[in-house]
């Protein structure tokens, strides 16, 4: 009888082990499976879509730029460093001309050499409408991130000149968005495809860059698989294989991680964090070059044209409460960048919670219990980088009510919101809104500040939605763009940033921390202060 009982127990254990092993058996050593928030694989032809998630997973793993981000450390704002270019400098006699020395010995995944011809070819793919490989789709994704670049000229095999339309010291940042695809591979595919567009589609299915990973499997809308590039010119990846899965629904991503189908998920649902931690998963986060603000409308008649009102709003919200609302997954914002950042600049106006001072400023501006300030803000219910917009805005609405501000929201979907963003607060699409809530990437000085504070960037040119116009700011931006020594340029940007905080040109609320959840089996992972991640570092031993 005892023997029979033991056999039954063993059989039951075997059945249980089999049941548990159905999923666990799929896991392979050295393979990292990542659940992305994207609904589709970001474009793999060299200029990814899907925002910075696209650059993170389809850009930097497969391709390199002339200048890249140093993603190896978590404890500092992420700096630029040499990539496919080893050195660069602006021509002292012609400040619209930059000379780049290229890294020797680099080859694309198809074995063809990387050289000056490849750089010129890659610039022409987005800037030269007459080029045979010109791709309108990549223009939209790239040209907007390199507003000053006009063309490239080969000097010799390993030297190339980039020409801008005006002196622009921000070019090194912009260039980090131009990934180098293989011209030879494209030409080989062109021979098999009827049009340039079809060739780029074929290229996307079998891309060739110089990056640390090579694409080996592409299933549209479902998965993409990379293997380590053994011929990589720099530090090689530690993981053997990366599998990327688009899982747009947050609960589905979390369930996939909990059930062992993936090893790492982007943006776990906030409600699941405790469960994930209790099951031994790691929650990683770090402050991102991101700001979640209200961008004011400055035109006559808008209450936010008055700096006292803008300052009052900045003082009227308890950001620690907002952080608590998000389960700790944010950093309270006191400017576009954090204190300690090279562009911080020590503003005189200290953003904090000070409701009495906020009420005093509002009273000075003519608002009080008998004349409450009514504001309309255009927001979205979701969207890339928008964090938890409904909950956060409702919290802010409640906070501002306490200082005598009544906020009404005009909720439109994300696609509509960023379409409206390009049209400005005087357009019919703004529907009378006094502010708009669009989150912003702040990796690059043009995208962090210049496009909002330069009067030339008013719609339809760029994102100065509120038509801010102050010659003092125009001049500060001109000086920053014309200062080419990096430390001096950062100092100029710091002055610009400090002035923007002093004038409260945004209502600053939060920085995202880009939460991720991952299996404790993953080693070597570093979460830099960046939208990007170096996939060469993590591995599963």
């Amino acid at each position, binding site marked *: 009888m005892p023997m029979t009982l033991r056999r039954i127990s063993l059989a039951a254990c075997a059945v249980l082990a089999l*049941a548990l092993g159905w999923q666990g058996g799929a896991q392979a050593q050295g393979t990292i499976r990542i659940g992305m928030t994207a609904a589709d694989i970001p474009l793999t032809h060299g200029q990814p879509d899907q925002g910075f998630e696209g650059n993170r997973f389809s850009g930097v793993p497969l391709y390199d730029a002339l200048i890249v981000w140093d993603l190896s450390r978590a404890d500092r704002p992420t700096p630029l460093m040499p990539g496919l270019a080893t050195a660069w400098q602006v021509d002292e006699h012609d400040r619209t001309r930059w000379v780049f020395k290229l890294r020797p010995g680099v080859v694309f995944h198809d074995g063809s050499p990387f050289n000056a011809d490849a750089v010129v070819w890659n610039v022409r793919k987005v800037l030269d409408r007459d080029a045979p490989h010109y791709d309108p789709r990549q223009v939209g994704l790239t040209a*907007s991130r390199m507003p000053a670049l006009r063309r490239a000229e080969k000097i010799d095999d390993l030297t190339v000149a980039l020409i801008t339309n005006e002196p622009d010291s921000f070019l090194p940042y912009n260039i980090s968005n131009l990934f180098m695809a293989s011209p030879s591979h494209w030409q080989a595919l062109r021979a098999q495809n009827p049009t340039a567009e079809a060739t780029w589609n074929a290229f996307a299915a079998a891309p060739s860059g110089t990056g640390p990973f090579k694409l080996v499997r592409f299933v*549209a809308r479902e998965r993409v698989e990379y293997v380590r590039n053994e011929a990589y010119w720099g530090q090689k990846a530690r993981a053997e294989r990366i599998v990327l899965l688009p899982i747009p629904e947050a609960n589905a991503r979390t369930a*996939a991680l909990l059930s*062992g189908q993936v090893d790492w998920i982007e943006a776990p649902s906030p409600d699941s964090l405790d469960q994930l931690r209790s099951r031994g998963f790691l929650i990683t986060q770090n402050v991102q070059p991101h700001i979640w603000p209200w961008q004011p409308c400055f035109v006559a008649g808008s209450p936010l044209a008055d700096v006292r009102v803008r300052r009052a709003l900045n003082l009227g919200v308890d950001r620690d409460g907002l952080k608590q609302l998000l389960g700790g997954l944010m950093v309270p914002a006191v400017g576009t960048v954090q204190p300690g950042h090279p562009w911080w600049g020590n503003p005189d106006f200290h953003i904090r919670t000070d409701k009495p001072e906020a009420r005093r400023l509002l009273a000075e501006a003519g608002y009080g219990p008998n004349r409450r300030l009514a504001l309309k803000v255009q927001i979205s219910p979701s969207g890339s980088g928008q964090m938890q917009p409904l909950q956060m805005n409702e919290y802010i609405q409640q906070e501002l009510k306490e200082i005598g501000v009544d906020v009404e929201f005009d909720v439109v979907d994300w696609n509509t919101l960023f379409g409206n963003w390009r049209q400005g607060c005087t357009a019919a699409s703004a529907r009378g809104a006094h502010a708009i809530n669009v989150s912003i990437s702040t990796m690059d000085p043009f995208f962090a500040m210049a496009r909002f504070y330069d009067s030339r960037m008013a719609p339809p040119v760029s994102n100065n939605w509120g038509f801010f116009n102050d010659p003092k700011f125009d001049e500060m931006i001109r000086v920053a763009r014309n200062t080419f020594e990096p430390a001096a340029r950062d100092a100029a940007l710091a002055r610009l940033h400090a002035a923007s905080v002093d004038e409260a040109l945004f209502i600053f609320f939060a920085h995202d921390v880009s939460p991720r959840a991952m299996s404790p089996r993953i080693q070597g992972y570093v979460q830099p202060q960046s939208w990007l991640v170096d996939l060469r570092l993590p591995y599963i031993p």
Partner: protein
Amino acid sequence: MILYLLRRALYAIPIALAVGFVCFMLVQIAPGDPINAIVPPDAPGDVVEQVRRDYGLDKPLPVQFGLWLFKVVQGDLGRSLATGRSVWSDLSTAIGNTLMLAVCASLVGFIMGCTLGGLAGTFRGTWLDRAATGIAVAGVSVPHYWLGMVMVVIFSVQLNWLPAMGAGPGGSSDWAWDWEHFQFLVLPTITLSVIPTGIVTRTVRGIVAEIMNQEFVVALRGKGLTRMQIFLHVVKNAAPNALAVIGLQLGYLMGGSILVETVFSWPGTGLLLNSAIFQRDLPVLQGTILVLAMFFVALNLIVDLIQAALDPRIKRA
């Protein structure tokens, strides 16, 4: 019969045109801009306008619609604005995946619905009837995406028995009918079958109850047929109506599984439509809706033909 088929096929042409036109106009009048599928939100105005021209989105709407229609009649659904891929290549894969899911869910719904409905109709007024009716009401009342999430929590997260998402360990492109792949189909199929189970149960119960009251059943009893033999006669009489219901359900499942496909990341037409809607990817949206509408029309025709074949009383002029 051939004339009938031809006439039905001709009817599909104005339906296709109307569907294409309505879909095109709905996307145009909805807030948002298809250009946002191609350019990032921070793109400067000149880049946006340049890309708009490159894609022909600056042309008048009737011209855009005409150009799309001209391509469609040649069998070209165009290219996705967001990915540049052929709409048909993505759509054909998605249709295959959704069809597999919808057929499995319809089969489960049909078998479960006929069984429960048949039992309830035969034994009406008993506890069996009440239990089956209760299941049917629950089936049509429970939000199926919620049920899907609950089942994922139980069977994937807690018990680790079944996968939580996806269409196979290597994606749907290398699908095989073995357990390693089939297990990915289990939870979405059960989730999606809940509504057809409820509807078919209620329909079959009503039909069976009605047939059981007819005189020929009394005659069959009088002739001394066994309960099983009578049941087979009843089933034969109930089949055409039940088939019509499940045929329509299959059509609904083809187009209406957006939420379930999203919950399970099942790469079908629902997920394709979902992302196309949010991206304003007009060619994908129009192509998918057009093909699904044609599928629905074709399915109705097939169901009509099968009904006529099963029941000689139904005549087709």
